[in-house]
């Protein structure tokens, strides 16, 4: 992965548990949200906790689903079902694009 990215391009990592309905829902919602709020695009990496346990440990993920925003800093963690859109936007720093 190249480090040469736009400084405020969103980089997300989403931890899900297989193809459960909640997980698929989480994926869908997130994608939906980002599509609407990130005109410049975003990077979303989906991690299956069953498939990459090491990553789970290293990132300290406990709850599923968990979303981690790596970029732009600071790192933010959000767990749950992402139903509350404004909360998600706030966590991702997308609401009004104000600096945290």
């Amino acid at each position: 992965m190249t480090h040469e990215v736009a400084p405020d391009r969103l980089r997300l990592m989403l931890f899900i548990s297989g193809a459960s309905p909640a997980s698929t829902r989480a994926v869908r919602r997130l994608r939906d949200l980002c599509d609407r709020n990130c005109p410049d695009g975003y990077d979303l990496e989906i991690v299956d906790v069953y498939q990459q346990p090491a990553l789970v440990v290293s990132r300290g993920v406990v709850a599923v689903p968990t979303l981690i925003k790596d970029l732009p800093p600071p790192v933010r963690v959000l767990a749950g079902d992402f139903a509350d859109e404004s909360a998600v936007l706030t966590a991702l720093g997308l609401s009004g694009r104000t600096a945290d």
Partner: protein
Amino acid sequence: MTADEDDRHQATAPLEYRLAVAEETVRALLAGSVDAIVMNVERGEQRVYTLETEDRPYRRLVERMSEGAALVDANGLIVYANERLASLLGVPLERLLGGPFSDWLDEPERAPFIAQLAAGTSEHAEHTARRLNGTGVPVLVGLNTTEGSSGSLRCLTVTDLSQQKAQQQQVRRLNAKLTEQVTELHRINSDLEDAERLLTYRTLHDPLTGLPNRALFVNRLEQSLAAAARTGHPVAVAFIDLDDFKRVNDTLGHAAGDLLLQEVAGRLSAVVRPNDTVARSAGDEFLVLTVGTPGGLPVALADRLLGALHDPPLRVGAWTVTASMGLAVSYEGVAPEQLLREADAAMYQAKRAGRARWELFGSRLRNELRYRRTAEQRLRKALAGDGVRVLYQPVVDLVDGQPVGAEALVRLRQSHGGLLVPATFMATAEECGLVLPLGQRVLELACEQPLRWEHKSGHPWYVSVNVSPRQLAEADLVAEVTAALAAAALPGDQLRLEITESALLDVDPRVMNILDQMRAMGIRIGVDNFGTGYASMAYVRRLPLDFIKIDQSFVSGMHDDVHDLAMVEATLALSHRLGLESVAEGIETEAQWHLLRDLGCDAGQGFLFAKPTTSGLVCAGQPALGDQRP
């Protein structure tokens, strides 16, 4: 980030990061929005605990329930639903999720349901759910508060009531049908009771007159006698018989006869007291039951009853019909049947005394009755067994004294060996209808004899049998005679029938026909005891006859009494004139024999020639002239 930073990052996450993760995790767990938890178990092994895993047993239960189940949030939106609910509503499961539960209820029920939801109470209520295709389904919706991880979920169970409703309706239908059938049963029951009552009535009442029949009468008589024993008030029975009723039926027809009976029933009923009973016993017999005063005789009743039937007189066509009545009063210990017999005997007495009157049963009658019963029993016994004997008295040609035939004379053999002559039993025989079987027996026996006599003596004999008018009227005489002749293989011209004059014979076409048929078979017909009865002339005038028998009273008085001689002469002249054979009875002296012979009498019988004997002795030898003396 540098690679180094990456490595460092990956090896151990910084504390503040880990804290942030932990915080977020806890928050998400409390919000109930977490799907699974990843735990580190010993030696670096990881386990992912999905909340699904935790509640899988419950989930399986819910999925497999026969009821629909759903979880709704505070806004009434379906968060979870099982397959059963989806199939109940005819909708794919995904369509249910996220939508309001109330949408699936019938429109008018939605608002109240939402209100209930808001109220937060638990309850069960019947609703109408609307399927996707619009059809309605009766359901029972159970609303429960549940302690969900979010705390605000409501648990719903939805039970399909269609089958139950259908069953309820069927039960209601069956109930209605049952009620209908019970009503019908009640109706049939009451119909049956009516029919039973009617049947009882009919078995005890005479259909023509509506009066009680004999059975009911006897029943009431029994009750009255029982009561009489207590109260001392005697019971009286009247036996009423219409005189010559048969004549009305025969000449005017049964319709006229029926009307007459109804008239009689009406008149009798009108003069009795409310507690009395008038019954129709049989044919033209009526019975009346009344309770009298102690020591009194039912004279007033008798006069009233008889008066009712004679004043005004009973008229049918050109006839005036009278009635004879017998009365009997109860005494201690008398049985109902005995009382009826006494009334009956008294009635017969009334008839013998001249009819159109009443007679009261008294001691003289009682004795007669007793005697007659004994006589009847004796006769029946004789008939049943071997008690009937027939003797034969030869009849000879007066010219040469040779036998030409014999008269059959019936006797009853008694147990001690004596023989009874008809005078002692013929009245009984007539009264109790035994004269027919008796006559038939005599006929059969008599027909068997002539051929035996012929065999012994070498010349043909005839046998002469007495026939009563009753036999002519009631028996199938032609058939009996034909059968008797056939059984004995006796030619018809060897049988003679002598009609006695014990009672009046109605010379009607039927009788004439019978006699004609007999004569066609070769049988000869004659009148017995000629001149003694009051019908002799009528018989001679009207019947097809072959011979006349001069009564023995004239024969025995011939020499002493000019009247008797005149009778004999006149009878002989008549028979000669009409071409009839003449036979004299009771010839006891030679003088009588010779005189009769000289007067032209053809044949005769009497002690001079032979006494009545058994068949075997009839041609023991030629009856010698003057051989046998009485």
